[in-house]
């Protein structure tokens, strides 16, 4: 066991001497955390609207004003006909077109039946859904006002009203949602790449043979490789949490110690996985590709960017073996909802079992004899 100390000493020396590696593991992740967190938003504002008003009456203008007054909309232009408006959508400068029919005001007053058209660019399907929702509710609100105005005795607005409260994130702040996730992503990325390249690097340099003729045992070897990266990842995470706290003003609702404890177990899992890849790969290029391959799948499925609940059943089943999915879930529960250990117990034990298994695999897979 005394030997581990010397292995650790050597690994740390090598990491801190690598001038190209240090910025990559310390500075770049922090910069990326800050920059990427600003990119990661689905928030929809400044919808570019083109109005085709074929009526030109106080009512039709009032409807247009309802849109331009909304914080979500930006009037891109008013055009006389649909063809010209559609051309703007084809060009990509309009997101939504509102067409007000001729005799709109008259129809509302006399036939009591009027109609408008709302055309939404739906290439981004989920954004289109939200944009259409905004448009429809503005039009309905306008209609409601008209009714109250014109028939003050009859209508009092909609009888059933809803109040919405957004818990855990009342301002619908994207940072509180994305920053913890991106932090997990970056820490996993660094942990996996560093560990997966490490053993294979010694293979490429030939130093592994020299180690294999020493009485070093498998467990000491794996532990000696794992601990330095574990320390670095935990340090990265801590710095990241500080950035989240002081730059993005995200408060950890739960217990930070619990969060660090779960992270420490998760990192053992990720690093063991990386070392496992490293024992299998023959070249660093291969190790890089294999890690990239798994990481891409794990990230996309993890619920970091898109909700897991919307995935088909098979994809949700797949997430049973996705370490990132467990960890992102636990991470958000602790950071945002203040969940305590009993809330995350199941996920935690799965993660811990997985970590032990993976550590075992990588230890077994490392062979001193060929």
């Amino acid at each position, binding site marked *: 066991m005394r*030997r581990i100390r010397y292995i650790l*000493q050597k690994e740390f020396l*090598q990491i801190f001497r*690598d001038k190209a590696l240090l910025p990559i593991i310390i500075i770049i992740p922090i910069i990326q955390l800050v920059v990427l967190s600003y990119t990661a938003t689905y928030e929809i504002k400044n919808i570019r609207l083109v109005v085709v008003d074929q009526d030109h009456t106080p009512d039709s203008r009032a409807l247009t004003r309802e849109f331009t007054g909304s914080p979500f909309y930006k009037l891109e232009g008013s055009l006389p006909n649909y063809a010209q408006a559609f051309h703007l959508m084809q060009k990509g400068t309009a997101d939504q077109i509102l067409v007000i029919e001729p005799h709109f005001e008259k129809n509302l007053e006399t036939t009591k039946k009027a109609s408008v058209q709302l055309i939404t660019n739906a290439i981004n399907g989920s954004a289109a859904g939200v944009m259409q929702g905004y448009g429809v509710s503005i039009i309905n609100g306008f209609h409601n006002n008209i009714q109250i105005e014109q028939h003050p005795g009859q209508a009092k607005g909609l009888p059933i009203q809803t109040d919405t409260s957004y818990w855990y994130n009342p301002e619908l702040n994207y940072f509180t949602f994305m920053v913890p996730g991106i932090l997990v992503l970056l820490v996993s990325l660094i942990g996996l790449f560093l560990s997966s390249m490490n053993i294979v690097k010694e293979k490429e340099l030939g*130093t592994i043979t*020299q*180690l294999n003729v020493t009485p070093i045992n498998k467990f000491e070897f794996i532990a000696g490789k794992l601990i330095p990266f574990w320390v670095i990842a935990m340090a990265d995470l801590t710095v990241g949490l500080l950035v989240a706290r002081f730059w993005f003003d995200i408060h950890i609702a739960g217990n930070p110690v619990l969060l660090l404890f779960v992270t420490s177990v998760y990192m053992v899992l990720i690093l063991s996985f990386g070392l496992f890849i490293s024992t299998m790969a023959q070249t660093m290029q291969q190790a890089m590709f294999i890690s990239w391959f798994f990481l891409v799948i794990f990230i996309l499925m993890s619920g970091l960017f898109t909700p897991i609940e919307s995935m088909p059943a098979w994809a949700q089943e797949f997430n049973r073996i996705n370490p990132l999915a467990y960890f992102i879930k636990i991470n958000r529960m602790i950071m945002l909802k203040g969940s305590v250990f009993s809330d995350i117990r199941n996920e935690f034990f799965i993660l811990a079992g997985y970590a032990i298994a993976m550590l075992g695999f990588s230890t077994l897979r490392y062979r*001193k004899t060929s």
Partner: protein
Amino acid sequence: MSEKIIEVKDLVKKFGNFVANDHLTFDVNRGEIFGFLGANGAGKTTAIKILTGLSKPTSGDVQVAGVNVSKYPERVKKKIGYMNQSFSLYDDMTVRENFRFYGGIYGLSKAEIKERTKHFLTKLNMEAYGNRMLKSIPLGWKQKLAFSVANIHNPGVIFLDEPTGGVDPITRRQFWELIYEAADRGTTVFVTTHYMDEAEYCERVCILSEGKIKALDTPVKLKQDFNTTNMNDVFLKLARNVE
């Protein structure tokens, strides 16, 4: 004669259909400098890997320092030193750090590591270079350092796999002086090489070709047998017989 430290009986190693080591049988005495000669691909490295427990033999019996290597590869590793043709010290660590690391791996105490490092640096006249990065040290010196590192735990046997590849004759000379010193202290030296002049330095040599032992004796005896004045001719004659 003296006590045997390496005993190999009927060692066979196959890679698929290719036979790399074909029924090798030989012994090495304690304190001996034993040369393992052969052209590239003759099976030298394969054999040395088996002797050091890096590779498992297909069949045969291998005892090193009283340990059955194929059964207990880990036990034998405490008793041997090894240096490889691409001497595997870490380029991004200093000379002293390399000593410390390998000393630690072999379970030496702090005081022992310090004492051994000092001893080797003094012997190599490299006291001033202890804190230099290995990558800034010339090739020939690196090889001498690698040899010292492989000796740090005073192993009973040291295996050298083509230790002098690619260095100038003077450095090679100095390197062999180190080998003699180790042998004088009672360390057995098992060395592979394809430099025939180096073969003359060995007490006994074993010439390998196509995985088989073609000759095994003292250089003097071999030269007599083949009726030549140097080992190079012995080797060439053997090679011709093969063809």
